[in-house]
């Protein structure tokens, strides 16, 4: 199954060069093990725009949908057979990016 992994951060653009090197090495390992689906860093949440297209006119609101002390500074989508494998992999991922992570199962695609 697939898991979304959010990288938890509380400071803007706080990544370092050492972290970037460790993350690259970790990503190579994910790819080699067949666990890689997707990964990306995210711009600061102040750059977010909330969109509401449900009405006649679209409404755009500046900022993130929820003000929080912590937010996602990046994400992975990984493929793992079960939670134990995912937890073991992302424990290494947490060490590589030097941040806490939130791991969340993705719903299986409709059959």
């Amino acid at each position, binding site marked *: *199954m697939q898991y979304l992994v959010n990288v938890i951060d509380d400071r803007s653009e706080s990544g370092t060069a050492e972290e970037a090197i460790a993350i690259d090495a970790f990503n190579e390992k994910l790819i080699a093990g067949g666990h890689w689906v997707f990964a990306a860093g995210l711009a600061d949440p102040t750059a977010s725009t909330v969109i509401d297209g449900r009405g006649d006119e679209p409404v755009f609101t500046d900022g993130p949908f929820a003000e929080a002390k912590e937010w996602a500074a990046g994400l992975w989508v990984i493929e*793992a*057979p*079960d*939670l*134990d494998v995912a937890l073991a992999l992302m424990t290494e991922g947490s060490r590589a990016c030097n941040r806490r992570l939130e791991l969340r*199962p993705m719903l299986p695609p409709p059959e």
Partner: protein
Amino acid sequence: MQPPSRAPSDAPSARVSDVRDALTRAHRTEWARVVATLARRFGNLDIAEDAAAEAFATAAEHWPADGVPPAPGAWLTTTATRKAIDRIRRESTRDARHREAMLVYDTETEPLGAIDDDRLRLIFICCHPALAMPARIALTLRLVGGLTVPEIASAFLVQDTTMGARITRAKSKIAASGIPYRVPAAQDLPVRVSGVLAVLFLIFNEGYLASGPDTAPVREELTAEAIRLTRLLRELLPDNGEITGLLGLMLLIEARRRARVSPSGELVPLAEQDRALWDMALIAEGHALVRARLASGLAPGRYQLLAAINAVHTDGDATDWTQVVALYDQLVRIDPSPIVRLSRAIAVGECDGPELGLALIDRVGAELEEYPPFHAARAQLLRRLDRDAETREAYDAAIALAENSAEVAYLKRQRAELGS
């Protein structure tokens, strides 16, 4: 002479009590096995739990009339399996493909000897580190222990609906997050076992030091259940020293239960306990477990050291505090938590005098301000040093924080003896 015969009117009542005993015994020995077998077969804890409960209800209905089957465990597993298949058929009539998928399992032959592993898998899934501790405790008591939701709710002083929701949420997380139904790999086993032991010890402690002003000070159903589950785990993993250690620890604490609370509901400290009330069979079993671990020659873990300390407390006519301090020295090296350092300080106070004990206790003070035994231990030491005003303050702090009714009663009497 008439041949001796039982009065016919005795027969049914004797049989009813036999059946009731057989049901109780089957529930104790077979519940976890039935749930575990079905969980593997159907890959769904909900179905396993409900079908097991239905099978036991069916047994309660049929056994009194039909008699106890020769192999109650097999009867219960077969009945539960049928109930589960019925439910899957019922629920999947709208979705033929789903039904086919579920019933593929139906024809699968079961590997021999995998049953015990199933119970172990069940224990590890209930105590998975991705679940919150209260959820682990509730799931373990329900799925492995076979306690009902109202029983667990009343043991933890919450509403039935709250406890039911907690268990449902935990099962949903297991299914949605892909927690696997398997015994952890060898390299992960020590950490995962210690996670299971933490759950079992919390269940035991909640029974042993029950919290809440209106509850019984000791809740035997929880201590007994924790011991039973630890025995089961030890049966499944007999070579694990920490499991043996925890079992020994629980038995040596449980052995003193009757002496620990006075008839008036007050806590009785170890030194003042009536040793005639101790359960000598449990003490002998606990001592044997501790000796077996010592004989292994392997470095003891946390629970083995705690068991050894309790073996010293229950050996001879009085505690040999020198040995207790030596064991706490070892424990502090592997677990330097403030609570362990507090226990060591208390032992030093008994061994080398109250000044030394107090000096050590005050060093952990900042971390244990909210912990009632810290203030109670300080009060005892200050009292031995005749520092009355500080003793009163320490008792007051302990009384304000303590949650166990027997502990509060004991502390209040100690405080009252000092006057104001």
